[in-house]
Protein backbone atom coordinates (compact mmCIF):
# COMPACT_ATOMS: atom_id res chain seq x y z
CA UNK A 1 0.00 0.00 0.00
CA UNK A 2 1.40 3.34 -1.00
CA UNK A 3 1.73 6.14 1.51
CA UNK A 4 -1.46 8.12 2.16
CA UNK A 5 -0.68 11.85 2.23
CA UNK A 6 -1.34 13.35 5.65
CA UNK A 7 -3.21 16.43 4.42
CA UNK A 8 -6.12 14.45 2.95
CA UNK A 9 -9.54 13.60 4.31
CA UNK A 10 -11.57 10.63 3.09
CA UNK A 11 -15.08 9.34 2.56
CA UNK A 12 -15.82 5.68 3.21
CA UNK A 13 -16.63 5.46 -0.51
CA UNK A 14 -12.92 6.21 -1.23
CA UNK A 15 -13.05 9.87 -2.35
CA UNK A 16 -10.41 12.19 -0.95
CA UNK A 17 -10.55 15.95 -0.30
CA UNK A 18 -7.64 18.33 0.17
CA UNK A 19 -8.12 21.87 1.53
CA UNK A 20 -5.74 24.14 -0.32
CA UNK A 21 -4.16 27.42 0.69
CA UNK A 22 -6.71 29.50 -1.17
CA UNK A 23 -9.59 27.80 0.69
CA UNK A 24 -10.63 25.69 -2.27
CA UNK A 25 -11.12 21.93 -1.92
CA UNK A 26 -9.68 19.50 -4.45
CA UNK A 27 -11.37 16.10 -4.83
CA UNK A 28 -10.22 12.76 -6.22
CA UNK A 29 -10.41 9.03 -5.60
CA UNK A 30 -7.95 7.07 -3.49
CA UNK A 31 -5.05 4.91 -4.57
CA UNK A 32 -6.96 1.94 -3.17
CA UNK A 33 -10.04 2.79 -5.28
CA UNK A 34 -8.09 3.08 -8.52
CA UNK A 35 -6.53 -0.31 -7.79
CA UNK A 36 -9.94 -1.87 -7.32
CA UNK A 37 -11.24 -0.36 -10.54
CA UNK A 38 -8.27 -1.30 -12.72
CA UNK A 39 -7.23 0.61 -15.86
CA UNK A 40 -9.41 3.70 -16.20
CA UNK A 41 -10.66 4.44 -19.71
CA UNK A 42 -13.15 7.28 -19.26
CA UNK A 43 -13.95 10.00 -16.74
CA UNK A 44 -17.19 11.98 -16.83
CA UNK A 45 -16.44 15.33 -15.21
CA UNK A 46 -18.91 17.73 -13.55
CA UNK A 47 -19.71 21.09 -15.15
CA UNK A 48 -17.67 24.06 -14.07
CA UNK A 49 -20.02 26.53 -12.34
CA UNK A 50 -22.45 23.85 -11.20
CA UNK A 51 -23.50 23.80 -7.56
CA UNK A 52 -23.19 20.40 -5.94
CA UNK A 53 -24.21 19.04 -2.57
CA UNK A 54 -22.19 16.76 -0.34
CA UNK A 55 -23.10 13.17 -1.19
CA UNK A 56 -24.06 13.95 -4.80
CA UNK A 57 -22.72 11.63 -7.46
CA UNK A 58 -21.12 14.34 -9.57
CA UNK A 59 -18.50 12.50 -11.63
CA UNK A 60 -18.15 9.00 -13.01
CA UNK A 61 -14.95 7.01 -13.40
CA UNK A 62 -15.10 4.09 -15.80
CA UNK A 63 -12.51 1.37 -15.92
CA UNK A 64 -12.20 -1.61 -18.20
CA UNK A 65 -14.17 -3.41 -15.50
CA UNK A 66 -16.93 -1.11 -14.25
CA UNK A 67 -18.43 2.37 -13.98
CA UNK A 68 -18.32 3.96 -10.56
CA UNK A 69 -19.87 7.18 -9.24
CA UNK A 70 -17.67 9.73 -7.54
CA UNK A 71 -19.50 11.38 -4.63
CA UNK A 72 -18.67 14.89 -3.60
CA UNK A 73 -17.46 15.08 0.00
CA UNK A 74 -18.48 18.73 0.26
CA UNK A 75 -21.12 21.22 -0.92
CA UNK A 76 -20.22 24.18 -3.05
CA UNK A 77 -19.54 25.46 -6.54
CA UNK A 78 -17.36 23.52 -8.98
CA UNK A 79 -14.63 25.99 -9.95
CA UNK A 80 -12.34 23.70 -11.95
CA UNK A 81 -12.21 20.21 -13.42
CA UNK A 82 -9.16 18.22 -14.42
CA UNK A 83 -9.37 18.45 -18.24
CA UNK A 84 -6.30 16.19 -18.53
CA UNK A 85 -8.54 13.27 -17.67
CA UNK A 86 -10.53 13.70 -20.91
CA UNK A 87 -7.62 12.38 -22.92
CA UNK A 88 -5.62 10.62 -20.22
CA UNK A 89 -7.96 8.99 -17.69
CA UNK A 90 -5.09 6.69 -16.74
CA UNK A 91 -3.57 9.67 -14.91
CA UNK A 92 -5.74 8.54 -11.97
CA UNK A 93 -4.12 5.09 -12.05
CA UNK A 94 -0.69 6.66 -12.14
CA UNK A 95 -1.11 9.36 -9.49
CA UNK A 96 -4.46 9.13 -7.69
CA UNK A 97 -3.56 11.58 -4.91
CA UNK A 98 -1.83 14.14 -7.13
CA UNK A 99 -2.10 14.69 -10.90
CA UNK A 100 -5.18 12.46 -10.97
CA UNK A 101 -7.43 14.91 -9.06
CA UNK A 102 -10.94 15.19 -10.55
CA UNK A 103 -12.56 18.51 -9.60
CA UNK A 104 -12.17 21.52 -7.35
CA UNK A 105 -14.93 23.06 -5.23
CA UNK A 106 -15.41 26.45 -3.62
CA UNK A 107 -16.81 25.15 -0.38
CA UNK A 108 -20.04 26.40 1.27
CA UNK A 109 -19.39 25.08 4.75
CA UNK A 110 -16.01 24.04 6.06
CA UNK A 111 -17.60 22.04 8.86
CA UNK A 112 -18.52 19.32 6.35
CA UNK A 113 -14.85 18.33 6.28
CA UNK A 114 -15.05 17.40 9.96
CA UNK A 115 -17.31 14.47 9.12
CA UNK A 116 -14.61 12.90 6.93
CA UNK A 117 -12.04 10.27 7.91
CA UNK A 118 -8.46 11.30 8.59
CA UNK A 119 -5.70 9.27 6.89
CA UNK A 120 -5.21 6.97 9.91
CA UNK A 121 -8.93 6.19 10.16
CA UNK A 122 -9.14 5.57 6.40
CA UNK A 123 -6.11 3.27 6.49
CA UNK A 124 -7.72 1.42 9.39
CA UNK A 125 -10.94 1.03 7.40
CA UNK A 126 -9.01 -0.50 4.47
CA UNK A 127 -7.22 -2.79 6.88
CA UNK A 128 -10.53 -3.96 8.38
CA UNK A 129 -12.02 -4.54 4.91
CA UNK A 130 -9.07 -6.73 3.96
CA UNK A 131 -9.76 -9.14 6.82
Amino acid at each position, binding site marked *: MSEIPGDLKFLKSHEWARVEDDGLVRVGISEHAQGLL*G*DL*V*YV*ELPEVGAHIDAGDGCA*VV*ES*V*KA*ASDVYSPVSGEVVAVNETLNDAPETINEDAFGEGWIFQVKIDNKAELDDMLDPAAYAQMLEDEAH
Partner: protein
Amino acid sequence: MTDKTVLNEAHRALGARMVDFGGWDMPLNYGSQIEEHHAVRRDAGMFDVSHMTVVDLKGERVREFLRHLLANNVDKLKKPGKALYTCMLNERGGVIDDLIVYFLAEDFFRVVVNAATREKDLKWITEQAKAFEVTVSERPEFAMIAVQGPTAREKALSVMDAATAEAAAALGKFAAAQGADLFVARTGYTGEDGFEIIVPAEQAAALWQKLLDAGVAPCGLGARDTLRLEAGMNLYGQDMDGDVTPWEANLGWTIAMDEGRDFIGRAALEKQKADGVPRRMVGVVMDDKGVLRHGQTVTTANGEGEILSGAFSPTLGKAIGFARIPAGEPGDVRVQIRNREFALRIVKYPFVRDGEPQPGI
Protein backbone atom coordinates in the same frame (compact mmCIF):
# COMPACT_ATOMS: atom_id res chain seq x y z
CA MET B 1 -17.12 -23.08 -1.94
CA THR B 2 -14.79 -21.69 -4.56
CA ASP B 3 -12.90 -23.98 -6.91
CA LYS B 4 -9.23 -23.37 -7.59
CA THR B 5 -7.26 -24.44 -10.65
CA VAL B 6 -3.85 -26.07 -10.14
CA LEU B 7 -2.28 -22.75 -11.20
CA ASN B 8 -3.89 -20.77 -8.38
CA GLU B 9 -0.65 -20.39 -6.44
CA ALA B 10 1.23 -19.37 -9.58
CA HIS B 11 -1.30 -16.56 -10.15
CA ARG B 12 -1.00 -15.33 -6.59
CA ALA B 13 2.80 -15.45 -6.76
CA LEU B 14 2.59 -13.15 -9.81
CA GLY B 15 0.46 -10.69 -7.83
CA ALA B 16 -2.78 -11.38 -9.69
CA ARG B 17 -5.97 -9.64 -8.67
CA MET B 18 -8.28 -12.61 -8.20
CA VAL B 19 -12.02 -12.69 -8.84
CA ASP B 20 -14.83 -15.21 -8.57
CA PHE B 21 -15.81 -16.41 -12.04
CA GLY B 22 -18.60 -18.99 -12.20
CA GLY B 23 -17.52 -20.43 -8.86
CA TRP B 24 -13.80 -20.41 -9.73
CA ASP B 25 -11.14 -18.24 -8.12
CA MET B 26 -9.49 -16.83 -11.27
CA PRO B 27 -7.03 -14.04 -12.14
CA LEU B 28 -8.75 -10.87 -13.42
CA ASN B 29 -5.42 -9.23 -14.20
CA TYR B 30 -1.80 -9.23 -13.04
CA GLY B 31 -1.54 -5.43 -12.91
CA SER B 32 -2.81 -3.78 -16.06
CA GLN B 33 -5.55 -5.40 -18.14
CA ILE B 34 -4.81 -3.07 -21.05
CA GLU B 35 -1.12 -3.99 -21.14
CA GLU B 36 -2.07 -7.68 -21.09
CA HIS B 37 -4.45 -7.08 -23.98
CA HIS B 38 -1.71 -5.40 -26.01
CA ALA B 39 0.76 -8.20 -25.16
CA VAL B 40 -1.54 -10.67 -26.92
CA ARG B 41 -2.13 -8.40 -29.93
CA ARG B 42 1.57 -7.58 -30.37
CA ASP B 43 3.57 -10.48 -28.93
CA ALA B 44 2.34 -13.41 -26.81
CA GLY B 45 0.18 -13.86 -23.74
CA MET B 46 -1.20 -16.84 -21.85
CA PHE B 47 -4.36 -17.60 -19.95
CA ASP B 48 -5.17 -20.24 -17.38
CA VAL B 49 -8.37 -21.76 -18.77
CA SER B 50 -8.30 -24.86 -16.58
CA HIS B 51 -11.76 -23.96 -15.31
CA MET B 52 -13.15 -25.02 -18.68
CA THR B 53 -14.51 -28.54 -18.85
CA VAL B 54 -12.96 -31.31 -20.95
CA VAL B 55 -15.37 -34.14 -21.71
CA ASP B 56 -14.46 -37.31 -23.60
CA LEU B 57 -17.11 -39.18 -25.58
CA LYS B 58 -16.47 -42.78 -26.54
CA GLY B 59 -18.45 -45.49 -28.30
CA GLU B 60 -19.10 -47.08 -31.66
CA ARG B 61 -21.97 -44.68 -32.35
CA VAL B 62 -20.37 -41.47 -31.10
CA ARG B 63 -20.42 -39.70 -34.47
CA GLU B 64 -24.08 -40.57 -34.95
CA PHE B 65 -24.74 -39.26 -31.42
CA LEU B 66 -23.01 -35.93 -32.16
CA ARG B 67 -24.96 -35.53 -35.42
CA HIS B 68 -28.04 -35.55 -33.20
CA LEU B 69 -26.65 -33.50 -30.28
CA LEU B 70 -25.01 -30.59 -32.10
CA ALA B 71 -26.32 -27.92 -34.47
CA ASN B 72 -23.17 -27.94 -36.57
CA ASN B 73 -22.41 -31.18 -38.40
CA VAL B 74 -19.52 -33.31 -37.16
CA ASP B 75 -19.38 -34.89 -40.62
CA LYS B 76 -17.32 -31.82 -41.54
CA LEU B 77 -14.62 -33.46 -39.40
CA LYS B 78 -12.93 -35.94 -41.71
CA LYS B 79 -9.35 -36.08 -40.46
CA PRO B 80 -8.50 -37.08 -36.87
CA GLY B 81 -7.47 -33.99 -34.90
CA LYS B 82 -9.85 -31.61 -36.68
CA ALA B 83 -12.01 -29.33 -34.55
CA LEU B 84 -15.41 -27.69 -35.03
CA TYR B 85 -17.13 -24.80 -33.26
CA THR B 86 -20.79 -25.48 -32.63
CA CYS B 87 -23.84 -24.75 -30.52
CA MET B 88 -25.68 -27.36 -28.49
CA LEU B 89 -29.38 -26.51 -28.54
CA ASN B 90 -32.47 -27.32 -26.49
CA GLU B 91 -35.74 -28.42 -28.12
CA ARG B 92 -36.81 -24.77 -28.39
CA GLY B 93 -33.74 -23.99 -30.48
CA GLY B 94 -32.17 -22.04 -27.59
CA VAL B 95 -28.46 -22.32 -26.94
CA ILE B 96 -27.52 -24.62 -24.02
CA ASP B 97 -23.85 -23.91 -24.64
CA ASP B 98 -21.31 -23.22 -27.36
CA LEU B 99 -18.35 -25.58 -27.52
CA ILE B 100 -15.49 -26.98 -29.53
CA VAL B 101 -15.64 -30.63 -30.57
CA TYR B 102 -12.49 -32.51 -31.61
CA PHE B 103 -12.54 -35.65 -33.77
CA LEU B 104 -9.85 -37.97 -32.42
CA ALA B 105 -10.99 -41.40 -33.69
CA GLU B 106 -14.20 -42.89 -35.07
CA ASP B 107 -15.08 -44.05 -31.54
CA PHE B 108 -13.56 -41.08 -29.68
CA PHE B 109 -14.50 -37.39 -29.76
CA ARG B 110 -13.57 -34.73 -27.21
CA VAL B 111 -15.58 -31.62 -26.35
CA VAL B 112 -14.53 -28.57 -24.35
CA VAL B 113 -17.43 -26.70 -22.77
CA ASN B 114 -17.75 -23.54 -20.67
CA ALA B 115 -17.03 -23.53 -16.94
CA ALA B 116 -20.24 -21.79 -15.87
CA THR B 117 -22.42 -24.30 -17.75
CA ARG B 118 -20.55 -27.43 -16.65
CA GLU B 119 -23.26 -29.15 -14.64
CA LYS B 120 -26.17 -28.62 -17.00
CA ASP B 121 -24.00 -29.55 -19.99
CA LEU B 122 -22.83 -32.82 -18.42
CA LYS B 123 -26.38 -33.69 -17.40
CA TRP B 124 -27.76 -32.92 -20.86
CA ILE B 125 -25.00 -34.74 -22.76
CA THR B 126 -25.21 -37.80 -20.49
CA GLU B 127 -29.00 -37.96 -20.87
CA GLN B 128 -28.86 -37.73 -24.66
CA ALA B 129 -25.95 -40.18 -24.91
CA LYS B 130 -27.83 -43.10 -23.35
CA ALA B 131 -29.75 -44.00 -26.50
CA PHE B 132 -26.47 -44.15 -28.43
CA GLU B 133 -24.51 -46.18 -25.87
CA VAL B 134 -21.86 -43.47 -25.71
CA THR B 135 -19.86 -43.06 -22.51
CA VAL B 136 -19.41 -39.52 -21.21
CA SER B 137 -16.35 -38.87 -19.04
CA GLU B 138 -15.30 -35.56 -17.58
CA ARG B 139 -11.51 -35.19 -17.39
CA PRO B 140 -10.81 -33.09 -14.27
CA GLU B 141 -7.23 -34.42 -14.17
CA PHE B 142 -6.36 -31.99 -16.98
CA ALA B 143 -5.46 -28.33 -16.77
CA MET B 144 -5.56 -26.03 -19.79
CA ILE B 145 -3.37 -23.10 -20.85
CA ALA B 146 -4.14 -20.90 -23.87
CA VAL B 147 -1.07 -19.25 -25.46
CA GLN B 148 -2.09 -16.53 -27.91
CA GLY B 149 -0.50 -13.82 -30.03
CA PRO B 150 1.62 -13.34 -33.16
CA THR B 151 4.67 -14.96 -31.51
CA ALA B 152 2.70 -17.42 -29.35
CA ARG B 153 3.23 -20.54 -31.45
CA GLU B 154 6.96 -20.02 -31.76
CA LYS B 155 7.32 -19.44 -28.01
CA ALA B 156 5.08 -22.36 -27.05
CA LEU B 157 6.88 -24.73 -29.43
CA SER B 158 10.19 -23.81 -27.80
CA VAL B 159 9.08 -25.33 -24.47
CA MET B 160 7.67 -28.61 -25.83
CA ASP B 161 9.49 -31.91 -26.22
CA ALA B 162 10.78 -32.47 -29.76
CA ALA B 163 8.12 -34.92 -30.93
CA THR B 164 5.21 -32.85 -29.56
CA ALA B 165 6.70 -29.67 -31.00
CA GLU B 166 7.03 -31.26 -34.41
CA ALA B 167 3.40 -32.39 -34.40
CA ALA B 168 2.19 -29.03 -33.05
CA ALA B 169 4.22 -27.04 -35.58
CA ALA B 170 2.54 -28.94 -38.42
CA LEU B 171 -1.01 -28.16 -37.24
CA GLY B 172 -3.32 -26.24 -39.52
CA LYS B 173 -5.85 -23.83 -38.01
CA PHE B 174 -8.57 -25.50 -35.94
CA ALA B 175 -6.71 -28.79 -35.63
CA ALA B 176 -5.16 -30.62 -32.68
CA ALA B 177 -2.48 -33.21 -31.99
CA GLN B 178 -1.87 -35.49 -29.04
CA GLY B 179 1.76 -35.49 -27.91
CA ALA B 180 3.32 -37.69 -25.23
CA ASP B 181 1.70 -35.62 -22.47
CA LEU B 182 0.25 -32.52 -24.07
CA PHE B 183 -2.85 -32.22 -26.23
CA VAL B 184 -2.16 -29.18 -28.41
CA ALA B 185 -4.88 -27.44 -30.42
CA ARG B 186 -4.38 -24.50 -32.78
CA THR B 187 -7.48 -22.73 -31.51
CA GLY B 188 -8.22 -19.75 -29.30
CA TYR B 189 -10.54 -17.02 -28.13
CA THR B 190 -8.59 -13.86 -28.93
CA GLY B 191 -8.53 -13.43 -32.71
CA GLU B 192 -4.79 -14.15 -32.74
CA ASP B 193 -2.93 -17.27 -33.75
CA GLY B 194 -1.80 -19.62 -31.00
CA PHE B 195 -2.47 -22.82 -29.13
CA GLU B 196 -4.79 -24.12 -26.46
CA ILE B 197 -2.84 -26.76 -24.56
CA ILE B 198 -4.48 -29.45 -22.44
CA VAL B 199 -1.90 -30.61 -19.91
CA PRO B 200 -1.96 -33.19 -17.10
CA ALA B 201 -2.68 -31.20 -13.93
CA GLU B 202 0.56 -32.20 -12.20
CA GLN B 203 2.62 -30.78 -15.10
CA ALA B 204 0.69 -27.53 -15.46
CA ALA B 205 2.73 -25.37 -13.07
CA ALA B 206 6.01 -26.41 -14.74
CA LEU B 207 4.61 -25.64 -18.21
CA TRP B 208 3.30 -22.26 -17.01
CA GLN B 209 6.76 -21.41 -15.63
CA LYS B 210 8.51 -22.46 -18.85
CA LEU B 211 6.18 -20.27 -20.87
CA LEU B 212 6.86 -17.35 -18.51
CA ASP B 213 10.61 -17.92 -18.97
CA ALA B 214 10.10 -17.97 -22.75
CA GLY B 215 8.65 -14.45 -22.50
CA VAL B 216 4.91 -15.19 -22.64
CA ALA B 217 2.99 -12.60 -20.59
CA PRO B 218 0.46 -13.89 -18.05
CA CYS B 219 -2.99 -12.46 -18.86
CA GLY B 220 -6.20 -12.47 -16.86
CA LEU B 221 -9.88 -12.89 -17.63
CA GLY B 222 -10.25 -9.14 -18.13
CA ALA B 223 -7.97 -9.09 -21.16
CA ARG B 224 -9.49 -12.35 -22.39
CA ASP B 225 -12.89 -10.64 -22.49
CA THR B 226 -11.78 -7.55 -24.44
CA LEU B 227 -9.71 -9.67 -26.84
CA ARG B 228 -12.56 -12.02 -27.70
CA LEU B 229 -14.99 -9.13 -28.12
CA GLU B 230 -12.64 -7.32 -30.52
CA ALA B 231 -12.34 -10.62 -32.37
CA GLY B 232 -16.14 -10.78 -32.68
CA MET B 233 -16.59 -13.91 -30.58
CA ASN B 234 -19.70 -14.52 -28.50
CA LEU B 235 -19.68 -15.08 -24.75
CA TYR B 236 -22.16 -17.59 -23.43
CA GLY B 237 -24.57 -16.14 -20.86
CA GLN B 238 -24.02 -12.61 -22.10
CA ASP B 239 -24.61 -12.85 -25.85
CA MET B 240 -26.79 -15.95 -25.92
CA ASP B 241 -28.49 -18.41 -23.60
CA GLY B 242 -31.30 -20.98 -23.53
CA ASP B 243 -33.88 -18.42 -24.66
CA VAL B 244 -31.89 -17.20 -27.67
CA THR B 245 -31.54 -19.09 -30.96
CA PRO B 246 -28.33 -19.04 -33.00
CA TRP B 247 -30.14 -16.89 -35.61
CA GLU B 248 -30.64 -14.25 -32.90
CA ALA B 249 -27.00 -14.42 -31.78
CA ASN B 250 -25.40 -14.09 -35.22
CA LEU B 251 -24.36 -17.74 -35.05
CA GLY B 252 -26.32 -18.85 -38.11
CA TRP B 253 -23.00 -19.75 -39.75
CA THR B 254 -22.57 -22.56 -37.21
CA ILE B 255 -25.89 -24.24 -38.03
CA ALA B 256 -25.68 -26.99 -40.63
CA MET B 257 -29.14 -27.45 -42.13
CA ASP B 258 -28.12 -30.52 -44.10
CA GLU B 259 -30.76 -32.70 -45.64
CA GLY B 260 -32.36 -35.20 -43.29
CA ARG B 261 -30.17 -34.65 -40.20
CA ASP B 262 -32.45 -34.60 -37.18
CA PHE B 263 -30.50 -32.57 -34.59
CA ILE B 264 -32.01 -31.34 -31.34
CA GLY B 265 -33.62 -27.93 -31.85
CA ARG B 266 -33.84 -28.20 -35.64
CA ALA B 267 -37.65 -28.16 -35.81
CA ALA B 268 -37.80 -25.03 -33.66
CA LEU B 269 -35.12 -23.30 -35.78
CA GLU B 270 -36.97 -24.11 -39.00
CA LYS B 271 -40.21 -22.79 -37.59
CA GLN B 272 -38.54 -19.58 -36.42
CA LYS B 273 -36.96 -19.09 -39.84
CA ALA B 274 -40.32 -19.64 -41.56
CA ASP B 275 -42.14 -17.26 -39.19
CA GLY B 276 -39.38 -14.66 -39.42
CA VAL B 277 -36.58 -14.26 -36.86
CA PRO B 278 -37.77 -11.45 -34.55
CA ARG B 279 -34.40 -10.18 -33.30
CA ARG B 280 -30.87 -9.96 -34.54
CA MET B 281 -27.45 -9.35 -33.06
CA VAL B 282 -25.23 -6.63 -34.51
CA GLY B 283 -21.80 -5.19 -33.82
CA VAL B 284 -21.80 -1.57 -32.64
CA VAL B 285 -19.19 1.15 -32.20
CA MET B 286 -19.62 4.34 -30.17
CA ASP B 287 -17.51 7.23 -31.46
CA ASP B 288 -18.32 9.45 -28.44
CA LYS B 289 -16.38 9.00 -25.23
CA GLY B 290 -17.82 6.53 -22.78
CA VAL B 291 -18.09 2.80 -22.33
CA LEU B 292 -20.73 0.36 -23.55
CA ARG B 293 -21.85 -2.09 -20.87
CA HIS B 294 -24.04 -5.16 -20.70
CA GLY B 295 -27.71 -4.27 -20.21
CA GLN B 296 -27.70 -0.69 -21.54
CA THR B 297 -30.85 0.14 -23.52
CA VAL B 298 -30.56 0.67 -27.26
CA THR B 299 -33.23 2.43 -29.32
CA THR B 300 -33.92 1.80 -33.02
CA ALA B 301 -36.64 2.65 -35.54
CA ASN B 302 -38.27 -0.70 -34.73
CA GLY B 303 -38.18 -0.53 -30.95
CA GLU B 304 -35.79 -1.16 -28.11
CA GLY B 305 -32.89 -3.54 -27.84
CA GLU B 306 -29.98 -3.90 -25.48
CA ILE B 307 -26.22 -4.09 -25.27
CA LEU B 308 -25.06 -7.67 -24.74
CA SER B 309 -21.26 -7.69 -24.50
CA GLY B 310 -19.89 -4.16 -24.25
CA ALA B 311 -16.44 -2.86 -23.42
CA PHE B 312 -13.74 -0.34 -24.09
CA SER B 313 -11.59 -1.68 -26.92
CA PRO B 314 -7.91 -1.17 -26.08
CA THR B 315 -6.88 -1.63 -29.73
CA LEU B 316 -9.38 0.91 -31.09
CA GLY B 317 -9.42 3.29 -28.11
CA LYS B 318 -13.21 3.45 -28.05
CA ALA B 319 -16.25 1.51 -26.95
CA ILE B 320 -17.47 -1.49 -28.93
CA GLY B 321 -20.11 -4.09 -28.32
CA PHE B 322 -22.80 -6.44 -29.51
CA ALA B 323 -26.44 -5.38 -29.39
CA ARG B 324 -29.59 -7.42 -29.82
CA ILE B 325 -32.20 -5.33 -31.65
CA PRO B 326 -35.55 -5.94 -33.35
CA ALA B 327 -35.33 -7.31 -36.91
CA GLY B 328 -35.54 -4.92 -39.87
CA GLU B 329 -33.79 -1.73 -40.93
CA PRO B 330 -32.82 -0.14 -37.62
CA GLY B 331 -32.57 3.52 -38.73
CA ASP B 332 -30.75 5.74 -36.20
CA VAL B 333 -29.43 3.60 -33.37
CA ARG B 334 -28.78 5.18 -30.00
CA VAL B 335 -27.72 3.94 -26.59
CA GLN B 336 -28.76 5.31 -23.21
CA ILE B 337 -25.95 5.74 -20.70
CA ARG B 338 -26.86 7.34 -17.36
CA ASN B 339 -29.77 9.40 -18.73
CA ARG B 340 -27.85 10.57 -21.77
CA GLU B 341 -28.13 9.30 -25.33
CA PHE B 342 -25.27 8.59 -27.70
CA ALA B 343 -25.24 7.57 -31.36
CA LEU B 344 -24.07 4.07 -32.25
CA ARG B 345 -22.75 2.87 -35.60
CA ILE B 346 -23.68 -0.64 -36.70
CA VAL B 347 -20.61 -2.31 -38.14
CA LYS B 348 -19.59 -5.63 -39.58
CA TYR B 349 -17.27 -7.41 -37.18
CA PRO B 350 -14.67 -8.71 -36.20
CA PHE B 351 -13.58 -5.31 -34.95
CA VAL B 352 -9.92 -6.40 -34.93
CA ARG B 353 -8.23 -9.23 -36.78
CA ASP B 354 -4.56 -10.30 -36.61
CA GLY B 355 -3.74 -7.23 -34.55
CA GLU B 356 -5.28 -4.74 -37.01
CA PRO B 357 -8.49 -2.67 -36.75
CA GLN B 358 -10.80 -3.77 -39.57
CA PRO B 359 -11.96 -1.41 -42.36
CA GLY B 360 -14.97 0.69 -41.43
CA ILE B 361 -14.48 0.28 -37.69
